[in-house]
Protein backbone atom coordinates (compact mmCIF):
# COMPACT_ATOMS: atom_id res chain seq x y z
CA UNK A 1 0.00 0.00 0.00
CA UNK A 2 2.70 2.45 1.04
CA UNK A 3 6.28 2.03 -0.03
CA UNK A 4 9.19 4.17 1.04
CA UNK A 5 12.44 3.29 -0.75
CA UNK A 6 15.93 4.49 0.25
CA UNK A 7 14.43 7.75 1.35
CA UNK A 8 16.51 10.66 2.63
CA UNK A 9 15.02 13.68 4.28
CA UNK A 10 16.39 16.62 6.25
CA UNK A 11 15.00 19.96 7.38
CA UNK A 12 18.51 21.42 7.25
CA UNK A 13 21.91 20.24 6.03
CA UNK A 14 23.12 19.73 9.58
CA UNK A 15 20.23 17.66 10.88
CA UNK A 16 19.20 14.63 8.89
CA UNK A 17 15.85 13.17 9.86
CA UNK A 18 15.91 10.05 7.68
CA UNK A 19 18.83 8.41 5.98
CA UNK A 20 18.28 5.67 3.42
CA UNK A 21 15.00 4.69 5.05
CA UNK A 22 12.90 1.94 3.50
CA UNK A 23 9.51 0.81 4.75
CA UNK A 24 6.54 -1.11 3.39
CA UNK A 25 3.03 -0.81 4.79
CA UNK A 26 0.59 -3.58 3.93
CA UNK A 27 -3.17 -4.02 4.16
CA UNK A 28 -4.97 -5.82 6.98
CA UNK A 29 -2.80 -4.39 9.77
CA UNK A 30 -3.04 -1.79 12.48
CA UNK A 31 0.44 -0.34 12.77
CA UNK A 32 1.73 1.36 15.88
CA UNK A 33 4.41 3.90 15.07
CA UNK A 34 6.46 4.54 18.18
CA UNK A 35 9.39 6.87 18.73
CA UNK A 36 10.84 9.40 21.12
CA UNK A 37 9.98 13.10 20.84
CA UNK A 38 11.67 14.49 17.74
CA UNK A 39 12.38 11.05 16.27
CA UNK A 40 10.49 12.05 13.12
CA UNK A 41 7.18 10.22 13.50
CA UNK A 42 5.05 13.09 12.21
CA UNK A 43 7.57 13.85 9.47
CA UNK A 44 7.43 10.21 8.38
CA UNK A 45 3.63 10.40 8.22
CA UNK A 46 3.86 13.59 6.17
CA UNK A 47 6.29 11.92 3.78
CA UNK A 48 3.89 9.00 3.39
CA UNK A 49 1.03 11.34 2.49
CA UNK A 50 2.85 13.75 0.16
CA UNK A 51 2.73 16.68 2.54
CA UNK A 52 6.54 16.64 2.53
CA UNK A 53 8.77 15.52 -0.32
CA UNK A 54 11.82 13.29 0.18
CA UNK A 55 15.14 14.80 -0.92
CA UNK A 56 16.06 11.50 -2.53
CA UNK A 57 14.54 8.05 -2.76
CA UNK A 58 10.84 7.54 -3.30
CA UNK A 59 7.54 7.50 -1.48
CA UNK A 60 4.60 5.84 -3.22
CA UNK A 61 1.00 5.01 -2.31
CA UNK A 62 -0.58 2.27 -4.45
CA UNK A 63 2.36 2.83 -6.82
CA UNK A 64 1.59 6.55 -7.19
CA UNK A 65 4.36 9.01 -6.35
CA UNK A 66 3.10 10.95 -3.31
CA UNK A 67 4.69 14.16 -4.69
CA UNK A 68 1.96 14.22 -7.33
CA UNK A 69 -0.78 14.52 -4.67
CA UNK A 70 -3.08 12.84 -7.16
CA UNK A 71 -6.81 12.67 -6.52
CA UNK A 72 -6.76 8.87 -6.82
CA UNK A 73 -4.27 8.73 -3.96
CA UNK A 74 -6.04 11.36 -1.82
CA UNK A 75 -9.35 9.48 -2.13
CA UNK A 76 -7.72 6.43 -0.52
CA UNK A 77 -5.62 8.00 2.23
CA UNK A 78 -6.83 9.99 5.22
CA UNK A 79 -4.47 11.75 7.59
CA UNK A 80 -5.74 12.89 10.97
CA UNK A 81 -3.06 15.10 12.53
CA UNK A 82 -2.51 15.54 16.26
CA UNK A 83 -3.73 19.15 16.18
CA UNK A 84 -7.00 18.95 14.32
CA UNK A 85 -8.60 21.70 12.27
CA UNK A 86 -12.34 21.94 11.78
CA UNK A 87 -14.27 24.85 10.24
CA UNK A 88 -16.56 26.95 12.37
CA UNK A 89 -19.80 25.26 11.32
CA UNK A 90 -22.23 22.68 12.73
CA UNK A 91 -21.23 19.00 12.57
CA UNK A 92 -23.88 18.56 9.84
CA UNK A 93 -22.44 21.50 7.94
CA UNK A 94 -18.97 19.96 8.08
CA UNK A 95 -20.43 16.79 6.61
CA UNK A 96 -22.05 18.78 3.77
CA UNK A 97 -18.77 20.52 3.06
CA UNK A 98 -16.39 17.56 3.01
CA UNK A 99 -18.17 14.19 2.80
CA UNK A 100 -18.82 14.47 -0.96
CA UNK A 101 -15.09 14.57 -1.60
CA UNK A 102 -14.79 10.95 -0.42
CA UNK A 103 -16.54 8.61 -2.88
CA UNK A 104 -17.03 5.81 -0.33
CA UNK A 105 -18.09 7.97 2.60
CA UNK A 106 -20.39 6.01 4.95
CA UNK A 107 -23.01 8.38 6.38
CA UNK A 108 -24.54 5.65 8.54
CA UNK A 109 -21.19 4.86 10.13
CA UNK A 110 -20.64 8.56 10.78
CA UNK A 111 -23.99 8.80 12.58
CA UNK A 112 -23.17 5.70 14.59
CA UNK A 113 -19.74 7.03 15.57
CA UNK A 114 -21.30 10.31 16.72
CA UNK A 115 -23.85 8.39 18.77
CA UNK A 116 -21.10 6.27 20.35
CA UNK A 117 -19.13 9.41 21.20
CA UNK A 118 -22.28 11.20 22.40
CA UNK A 119 -21.93 14.10 19.96
CA UNK A 120 -24.96 16.06 18.78
CA UNK A 121 -24.76 16.62 14.99
CA UNK A 122 -26.44 20.00 15.39
CA UNK A 123 -23.76 21.34 17.73
CA UNK A 124 -21.44 24.05 16.49
CA UNK A 125 -17.78 23.11 16.32
CA UNK A 126 -16.72 26.43 17.86
CA UNK A 127 -18.60 25.67 21.08
CA UNK A 128 -17.13 22.18 21.47
CA UNK A 129 -14.21 21.19 23.67
CA UNK A 130 -10.98 19.91 22.09
CA UNK A 131 -11.93 16.34 22.98
CA UNK A 132 -15.38 16.67 21.38
CA UNK A 133 -13.91 18.11 18.20
CA UNK A 134 -11.40 15.28 18.14
CA UNK A 135 -14.31 12.81 18.36
CA UNK A 136 -15.95 14.49 15.33
CA UNK A 137 -12.66 14.33 13.42
CA UNK A 138 -12.15 10.64 14.33
CA UNK A 139 -15.75 9.82 13.31
CA UNK A 140 -15.23 11.54 9.98
CA UNK A 141 -11.87 9.82 9.41
CA UNK A 142 -13.32 6.36 10.07
CA UNK A 143 -16.36 7.05 7.87
CA UNK A 144 -14.35 8.08 4.81
CA UNK A 145 -13.68 4.35 4.22
CA UNK A 146 -10.23 5.26 2.92
CA UNK A 147 -7.96 2.26 2.49
CA UNK A 148 -5.19 3.92 4.46
CA UNK A 149 -6.04 5.72 7.66
CA UNK A 150 -3.20 7.59 9.35
CA UNK A 151 -3.73 9.01 12.82
CA UNK A 152 -1.22 11.03 14.78
CA UNK A 153 -1.85 10.73 18.54
CA UNK A 154 -5.55 9.89 18.09
CA UNK A 155 -6.28 9.38 21.78
CA UNK A 156 -4.85 12.74 22.90
CA UNK A 157 -7.68 14.75 24.40
CA UNK A 158 -10.11 11.82 24.59
CA UNK A 159 -11.68 10.93 27.93
CA UNK A 160 -11.34 7.38 29.34
CA UNK A 161 -14.61 5.91 27.94
CA UNK A 162 -13.96 7.48 24.53
CA UNK A 163 -10.58 5.74 24.27
CA UNK A 164 -12.36 2.40 24.55
CA UNK A 165 -14.99 3.48 22.01
CA UNK A 166 -12.24 4.56 19.65
CA UNK A 167 -10.53 1.16 19.92
CA UNK A 168 -13.84 -0.59 19.24
CA UNK A 169 -14.66 1.52 16.18
CA UNK A 170 -11.14 1.29 14.75
CA UNK A 171 -11.15 -2.49 15.12
CA UNK A 172 -14.51 -2.61 13.29
CA UNK A 173 -13.34 -0.79 10.17
CA UNK A 174 -10.16 -2.77 9.58
CA UNK A 175 -10.21 -5.32 6.74
CA UNK A 176 -7.68 -7.12 4.53
CA UNK A 177 -7.56 -4.28 2.03
CA UNK A 178 -7.32 -1.50 4.61
CA UNK A 179 -4.70 -0.46 7.12
CA UNK A 180 -4.46 1.96 10.00
CA UNK A 181 -1.25 3.65 11.10
CA UNK A 182 -1.34 5.02 14.63
CA UNK A 183 1.49 7.23 15.78
CA UNK A 184 1.42 7.51 19.55
CA UNK A 185 3.16 8.02 22.83
CA UNK A 186 0.14 6.69 24.70
CA UNK A 187 0.99 3.03 24.08
CA UNK A 188 -1.22 1.78 26.91
CA UNK A 189 -4.28 3.33 25.19
CA UNK A 190 -3.72 1.43 21.97
CA UNK A 191 -1.84 -1.68 23.08
CA UNK A 192 -4.78 -3.97 22.44
CA UNK A 193 -5.39 -2.49 18.99
CA UNK A 194 -1.94 -2.49 17.43
CA UNK A 195 -0.89 -5.68 15.62
CA UNK A 196 2.38 -4.45 14.09
CA UNK A 197 4.98 -2.32 15.81
CA UNK A 198 7.30 0.14 14.07
CA UNK A 199 9.91 1.72 16.31
CA UNK A 200 11.70 4.76 15.00
CA UNK A 201 14.92 6.09 16.50
CA UNK A 202 17.80 8.26 15.29
CA UNK A 203 16.77 8.43 11.64
CA UNK A 204 16.24 4.69 11.23
CA UNK A 205 13.67 2.00 11.85
CA UNK A 206 14.78 -0.23 14.71
CA UNK A 207 11.84 -2.62 14.67
CA UNK A 208 9.08 -3.39 12.17
CA UNK A 209 7.39 -6.63 13.23
CA UNK A 210 3.99 -8.03 14.03
CA UNK A 211 3.01 -8.71 17.63
CA UNK A 212 2.99 -12.41 16.73
CA UNK A 213 6.60 -12.29 15.52
CA UNK A 214 7.62 -10.40 18.65
CA UNK A 215 5.83 -12.94 20.86
CA UNK A 216 7.59 -15.78 19.07
CA UNK A 217 10.99 -14.30 19.87
CA UNK A 218 10.47 -12.60 23.22
CA UNK A 219 8.80 -13.52 26.47
CA UNK A 220 7.42 -10.72 28.65
CA UNK A 221 7.01 -11.52 32.34
CA UNK A 222 6.94 -10.02 35.83
CA UNK A 223 9.59 -11.29 38.27
CA UNK A 224 9.89 -10.61 41.97
CA UNK A 225 13.70 -10.84 41.79
CA UNK A 226 16.31 -11.02 39.06
CA UNK A 227 18.54 -13.36 41.06
CA UNK A 228 19.18 -16.59 39.22
CA UNK A 229 17.42 -15.29 36.09
CA UNK A 230 20.36 -15.51 33.72
CA UNK A 231 18.32 -15.33 30.54
CA UNK A 232 16.85 -11.84 31.23
CA UNK A 233 17.90 -9.54 28.40
CA UNK A 234 16.04 -6.47 29.67
CA UNK A 235 14.29 -5.48 32.88
CA UNK A 236 12.57 -2.52 34.46
CA UNK A 237 11.92 -2.13 38.17
CA UNK A 238 8.36 -1.35 39.22
CA UNK A 239 6.70 -1.41 42.68
CA UNK A 240 5.08 -4.71 41.67
CA UNK A 241 8.37 -6.36 40.71
CA UNK A 242 10.58 -6.47 37.65
CA UNK A 243 9.08 -6.26 34.18
CA UNK A 244 11.47 -8.55 32.38
CA UNK A 245 12.07 -9.75 28.84
CA UNK A 246 13.72 -13.06 28.01
CA UNK A 247 14.21 -14.93 24.74
CA UNK A 248 11.19 -17.14 24.06
CA UNK A 249 12.94 -20.48 23.70
CA UNK A 250 9.95 -22.73 24.40
CA UNK A 251 7.30 -21.01 22.28
CA UNK A 252 5.37 -19.78 25.30
CA UNK A 253 2.63 -17.16 25.05
CA UNK A 254 2.93 -13.77 26.73
CA UNK A 255 1.33 -10.34 26.37
CA UNK A 256 3.67 -7.86 24.71
CA UNK A 257 4.23 -4.83 26.91
CA UNK A 258 4.75 -2.10 24.31
CA UNK A 259 6.32 0.32 26.76
CA UNK A 260 8.89 -2.26 27.84
CA UNK A 261 9.46 -3.31 24.24
CA UNK A 262 10.04 0.31 23.22
CA UNK A 263 12.50 0.99 26.05
CA UNK A 264 14.32 -2.25 25.37
CA UNK A 265 14.59 -1.54 21.63
CA UNK A 266 15.88 2.00 22.00
CA UNK A 267 18.41 0.95 24.66
CA UNK A 268 19.63 -2.20 22.89
CA UNK A 269 19.19 -1.54 19.16
CA UNK A 270 21.92 -4.00 18.15
CA UNK A 271 20.38 -6.85 20.12
CA UNK A 272 17.00 -6.22 18.47
CA UNK A 273 18.70 -6.04 15.09
CA UNK A 274 20.29 -9.44 15.68
CA UNK A 275 17.09 -11.03 16.94
CA UNK A 276 14.82 -9.72 14.18
CA UNK A 277 17.37 -9.71 11.33
CA UNK A 278 16.91 -6.07 10.36
Amino acid at each position, binding site marked *: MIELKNMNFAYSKKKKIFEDLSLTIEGGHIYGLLGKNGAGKTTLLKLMTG*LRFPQSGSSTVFGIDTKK*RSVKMLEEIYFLPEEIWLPDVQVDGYLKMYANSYPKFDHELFKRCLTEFEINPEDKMKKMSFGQRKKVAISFALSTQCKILIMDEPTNGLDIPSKGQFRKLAAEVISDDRCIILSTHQVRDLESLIDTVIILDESRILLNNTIEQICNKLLFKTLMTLEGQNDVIYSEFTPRGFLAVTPNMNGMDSKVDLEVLFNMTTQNPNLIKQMFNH
Partner: protein
Amino acid sequence: MFSFKRFFEQFKMIWMQNAQKQGLVLAVLTLVIIYINFNRYYFDGNSSDLAFLGMFVAVMTIINSTNVFSALLHTSSGIHYYMTPASISEKYLAAWFYSSIITIAVYTLTIYFVNLASISVGNAITGQEHSFVIPIETLKEGFLDLMFVQSLFFLGAVVFKKNPLGKTLLTIICCGFIISLISALIIRWYLMGEEGFSNLSDTTNYNLTIHIDNINDLNLPENLGNLKEVLKVIVFCIPFVCWITAYFRLKKREI
Protein backbone atom coordinates in the same frame (compact mmCIF):
# COMPACT_ATOMS: atom_id res chain seq x y z
CA MET B 1 -8.10 15.02 -15.21
CA PHE B 2 -9.92 18.20 -14.24
CA SER B 3 -13.29 17.54 -12.63
CA PHE B 4 -15.96 20.24 -12.45
CA LYS B 5 -17.65 18.30 -9.66
CA ARG B 6 -14.54 18.50 -7.45
CA PHE B 7 -14.02 22.13 -8.50
CA PHE B 8 -17.56 22.89 -7.37
CA GLU B 9 -17.00 21.02 -4.09
CA GLN B 10 -13.88 23.08 -3.44
CA PHE B 11 -15.74 26.27 -4.26
CA LYS B 12 -18.58 25.22 -1.95
CA MET B 13 -16.08 24.69 0.90
CA ILE B 14 -14.67 28.22 0.50
CA TRP B 15 -18.16 29.68 0.14
CA MET B 16 -19.53 27.95 3.25
CA GLN B 17 -16.51 28.86 5.35
CA ASN B 18 -16.85 32.54 4.46
CA ALA B 19 -20.63 32.85 4.13
CA GLN B 20 -21.22 34.30 7.59
CA LYS B 21 -18.49 36.96 7.36
CA GLN B 22 -19.46 37.93 3.82
CA GLY B 23 -23.11 38.26 4.83
CA LEU B 24 -22.13 40.69 7.57
CA VAL B 25 -19.93 42.73 5.20
CA LEU B 26 -22.73 42.92 2.61
CA ALA B 27 -25.17 44.10 5.29
CA VAL B 28 -22.78 46.89 6.31
CA LEU B 29 -22.21 47.80 2.65
CA THR B 30 -25.99 48.04 2.11
CA LEU B 31 -26.39 50.41 5.04
CA VAL B 32 -23.47 52.56 3.87
CA ILE B 33 -24.90 52.87 0.33
CA ILE B 34 -28.32 53.81 1.69
CA TYR B 35 -26.74 56.47 3.90
CA ILE B 36 -24.64 57.84 1.03
CA ASN B 37 -27.59 58.01 -1.39
CA PHE B 38 -29.94 59.72 1.01
CA ASN B 39 -27.25 62.14 2.02
CA ARG B 40 -26.32 62.87 -1.60
CA TYR B 41 -29.67 63.10 -3.30
CA TYR B 42 -32.09 64.15 -0.64
CA PHE B 43 -30.09 66.08 1.96
CA ASP B 44 -27.69 67.80 -0.43
CA GLY B 45 -24.62 66.35 1.24
CA ASN B 46 -21.15 66.49 -0.18
CA SER B 47 -20.55 63.06 -1.65
CA SER B 48 -17.74 61.12 -3.24
CA ASP B 49 -19.66 57.83 -3.25
CA LEU B 50 -18.21 56.20 -6.36
CA ALA B 51 -14.64 56.59 -5.15
CA PHE B 52 -15.65 55.30 -1.71
CA LEU B 53 -17.50 52.28 -3.11
CA GLY B 54 -14.62 51.52 -5.46
CA MET B 55 -12.26 51.63 -2.49
CA PHE B 56 -14.61 49.35 -0.52
CA VAL B 57 -14.64 46.72 -3.29
CA ALA B 58 -10.84 46.99 -3.60
CA VAL B 59 -10.37 46.44 0.15
CA MET B 60 -12.73 43.45 0.11
CA THR B 61 -10.90 42.02 -2.91
CA ILE B 62 -7.61 42.33 -1.01
CA ILE B 63 -9.08 40.71 2.12
CA ASN B 64 -10.72 37.86 0.20
CA SER B 65 -7.62 37.20 -1.91
CA THR B 66 -5.47 37.01 1.20
CA ASN B 67 -7.93 34.88 3.16
CA VAL B 68 -8.73 32.42 0.42
CA PHE B 69 -5.58 30.47 1.31
CA SER B 70 -5.84 31.05 5.07
CA ALA B 71 -5.73 27.24 5.50
CA LEU B 72 -2.05 27.41 4.64
CA LEU B 73 -1.27 29.60 7.66
CA HIS B 74 -1.44 26.69 10.11
CA THR B 75 -0.08 23.16 9.89
CA SER B 76 -3.34 21.48 10.92
CA SER B 77 -5.54 23.39 8.46
CA GLY B 78 -2.84 23.06 5.79
CA ILE B 79 -2.87 19.29 6.19
CA HIS B 80 -6.66 19.31 5.91
CA TYR B 81 -6.45 21.46 2.78
CA TYR B 82 -3.85 19.39 0.94
CA MET B 83 -5.35 16.03 1.99
CA THR B 84 -8.83 16.87 0.67
CA PRO B 85 -9.31 14.83 -2.52
CA ALA B 86 -9.03 17.33 -5.36
CA SER B 87 -6.21 18.21 -7.70
CA ILE B 88 -4.12 21.32 -7.15
CA SER B 89 -5.60 22.88 -10.30
CA GLU B 90 -9.16 22.32 -8.96
CA LYS B 91 -8.25 23.81 -5.57
CA TYR B 92 -6.41 26.69 -7.19
CA LEU B 93 -9.16 27.57 -9.66
CA ALA B 94 -11.83 27.43 -6.96
CA ALA B 95 -9.79 29.89 -4.86
CA TRP B 96 -9.09 32.11 -7.85
CA PHE B 97 -12.73 32.11 -8.96
CA TYR B 98 -13.94 32.98 -5.48
CA SER B 99 -11.42 35.74 -4.76
CA SER B 100 -11.65 37.42 -8.16
CA ILE B 101 -14.81 36.90 -10.18
CA ILE B 102 -17.25 36.06 -7.39
CA THR B 103 -16.01 38.70 -4.94
CA ILE B 104 -16.09 41.47 -7.55
CA ALA B 105 -19.43 40.31 -9.00
CA VAL B 106 -21.16 40.00 -5.62
CA TYR B 107 -20.02 43.43 -4.43
CA THR B 108 -20.73 45.15 -7.76
CA LEU B 109 -24.21 43.63 -7.97
CA THR B 110 -24.91 44.54 -4.34
CA ILE B 111 -23.86 48.13 -5.01
CA TYR B 112 -26.01 48.23 -8.16
CA PHE B 113 -29.19 46.79 -6.66
CA VAL B 114 -28.96 48.66 -3.37
CA ASN B 115 -28.39 51.92 -5.27
CA LEU B 116 -31.35 51.20 -7.49
CA ALA B 117 -33.60 50.25 -4.60
CA SER B 118 -32.59 53.08 -2.29
CA ILE B 119 -33.01 55.73 -5.00
CA SER B 120 -36.42 54.33 -5.98
CA VAL B 121 -37.54 54.39 -2.34
CA GLY B 122 -36.04 57.88 -1.87
CA ASN B 123 -37.86 59.18 -4.94
CA ALA B 124 -41.13 57.68 -3.76
CA ILE B 125 -40.80 59.24 -0.29
CA THR B 126 -39.62 62.71 -1.32
CA GLY B 127 -41.37 63.01 -4.66
CA GLN B 128 -38.07 63.96 -6.31
CA GLU B 129 -36.84 62.32 -9.52
CA HIS B 130 -33.29 61.13 -9.31
CA SER B 131 -31.94 58.37 -11.51
CA PHE B 132 -29.15 55.89 -11.08
CA VAL B 133 -26.78 55.61 -14.02
CA ILE B 134 -24.34 52.71 -14.24
CA PRO B 135 -20.88 54.07 -15.00
CA ILE B 136 -19.92 51.31 -17.49
CA GLU B 137 -16.53 52.79 -18.39
CA THR B 138 -15.58 53.23 -14.74
CA LEU B 139 -16.65 49.64 -14.06
CA LYS B 140 -14.50 48.31 -16.90
CA GLU B 141 -11.41 50.19 -15.76
CA GLY B 142 -12.14 49.34 -12.16
CA PHE B 143 -12.41 45.63 -12.97
CA LEU B 144 -8.95 45.56 -14.55
CA ASP B 145 -7.48 47.46 -11.59
CA LEU B 146 -9.14 45.04 -9.17
CA MET B 147 -7.74 42.03 -11.03
CA PHE B 148 -4.28 43.59 -10.79
CA VAL B 149 -4.66 44.08 -7.03
CA GLN B 150 -6.23 40.63 -6.60
CA SER B 151 -3.32 38.90 -8.37
CA LEU B 152 -0.72 40.52 -6.10
CA PHE B 153 -2.46 39.57 -2.86
CA PHE B 154 -3.43 36.15 -4.20
CA LEU B 155 0.24 35.41 -4.83
CA GLY B 156 1.19 36.85 -1.43
CA ALA B 157 -1.29 34.50 0.25
CA VAL B 158 0.47 31.46 -1.21
CA VAL B 159 4.05 32.70 -0.82
CA PHE B 160 4.10 34.09 2.72
CA LYS B 161 3.67 31.59 5.53
CA LYS B 162 2.81 34.18 8.20
CA ASN B 163 0.96 37.51 7.99
CA PRO B 164 0.52 37.43 4.19
CA LEU B 165 -1.49 40.69 4.13
CA GLY B 166 1.19 42.74 5.91
CA LYS B 167 4.06 41.15 4.05
CA THR B 168 2.41 41.58 0.64
CA LEU B 169 1.70 45.25 1.41
CA LEU B 170 5.30 45.77 2.49
CA THR B 171 6.59 44.03 -0.65
CA ILE B 172 4.36 46.18 -2.86
CA ILE B 173 5.56 49.36 -1.11
CA CYS B 174 9.22 48.31 -1.45
CA CYS B 175 8.82 47.28 -5.10
CA GLY B 176 6.89 50.49 -5.81
CA PHE B 177 9.68 52.55 -4.27
CA ILE B 178 12.39 50.74 -6.26
CA ILE B 179 10.42 51.01 -9.53
CA SER B 180 9.80 54.74 -8.93
CA LEU B 181 13.47 55.29 -8.24
CA ILE B 182 14.54 53.42 -11.38
CA SER B 183 11.90 55.27 -13.46
CA ALA B 184 13.09 58.61 -12.13
CA LEU B 185 16.69 57.73 -12.94
CA ILE B 186 15.74 56.62 -16.47
CA ILE B 187 13.71 59.77 -17.09
CA ARG B 188 16.55 61.92 -15.77
CA TRP B 189 19.08 60.09 -17.94
CA TYR B 190 16.93 60.51 -21.05
CA LEU B 191 16.17 64.15 -20.41
CA MET B 192 19.67 65.18 -19.44
CA GLY B 193 20.54 66.58 -22.84
CA GLU B 194 17.06 67.77 -23.77
CA GLU B 195 16.21 71.39 -24.28
CA GLY B 196 14.15 72.68 -21.42
CA PHE B 197 15.50 70.11 -18.98
CA SER B 198 16.94 72.86 -16.81
CA ASN B 199 13.41 74.23 -16.42
CA LEU B 200 12.20 70.89 -15.21
CA SER B 201 14.96 69.66 -13.03
CA ASP B 202 16.55 71.32 -10.07
CA THR B 203 20.13 70.71 -11.18
CA THR B 204 21.61 73.07 -8.62
CA ASN B 205 20.86 70.67 -5.81
CA TYR B 206 21.41 67.66 -8.07
CA ASN B 207 18.29 65.91 -6.99
CA LEU B 208 15.63 64.02 -8.91
CA THR B 209 12.84 66.55 -8.49
CA ILE B 210 10.81 66.98 -11.68
CA HIS B 211 8.23 69.72 -11.84
CA ILE B 212 5.14 67.91 -13.05
CA ASP B 213 3.36 71.08 -14.17
CA ASN B 214 5.99 71.67 -16.83
CA ILE B 215 6.42 68.12 -18.12
CA ASN B 216 3.80 68.48 -20.88
CA ASP B 217 5.81 71.32 -22.41
CA LEU B 218 8.62 68.92 -23.11
CA ASN B 219 8.88 66.84 -26.29
CA LEU B 220 9.56 63.35 -25.00
CA PRO B 221 12.23 61.47 -26.95
CA GLU B 222 10.91 58.61 -29.09
CA ASN B 223 12.66 55.99 -26.96
CA LEU B 224 10.93 57.22 -23.84
CA GLY B 225 7.59 56.96 -25.58
CA ASN B 226 8.37 53.32 -26.39
CA LEU B 227 9.34 52.73 -22.80
CA LYS B 228 5.90 53.90 -21.77
CA GLU B 229 4.34 51.29 -24.07
CA VAL B 230 6.65 48.60 -22.71
CA LEU B 231 5.63 49.54 -19.18
CA LYS B 232 1.95 49.26 -20.14
CA VAL B 233 2.54 45.73 -21.45
CA ILE B 234 4.47 44.80 -18.28
CA VAL B 235 1.65 46.08 -16.07
CA PHE B 236 -0.87 44.12 -18.15
CA CYS B 237 1.22 40.94 -17.78
CA ILE B 238 1.77 41.21 -14.01
CA PRO B 239 -1.56 39.57 -13.01
CA PHE B 240 -0.89 36.58 -15.28
CA VAL B 241 2.64 36.18 -13.94
CA CYS B 242 1.31 36.36 -10.35
CA TRP B 243 -1.44 33.79 -11.02
CA ILE B 244 0.92 31.34 -12.71
CA THR B 245 3.54 31.73 -9.97
CA ALA B 246 0.84 31.23 -7.32
CA TYR B 247 -0.23 27.97 -8.98
CA PHE B 248 3.27 26.50 -9.02
CA ARG B 249 3.95 27.69 -5.47
CA LEU B 250 0.75 25.98 -4.29
CA LYS B 251 1.73 22.81 -6.11
CA LYS B 252 5.22 22.65 -4.63
CA ARG B 253 4.46 23.90 -1.15
CA GLU B 254 5.20 21.51 1.72
CA ILE B 255 3.38 21.46 5.05
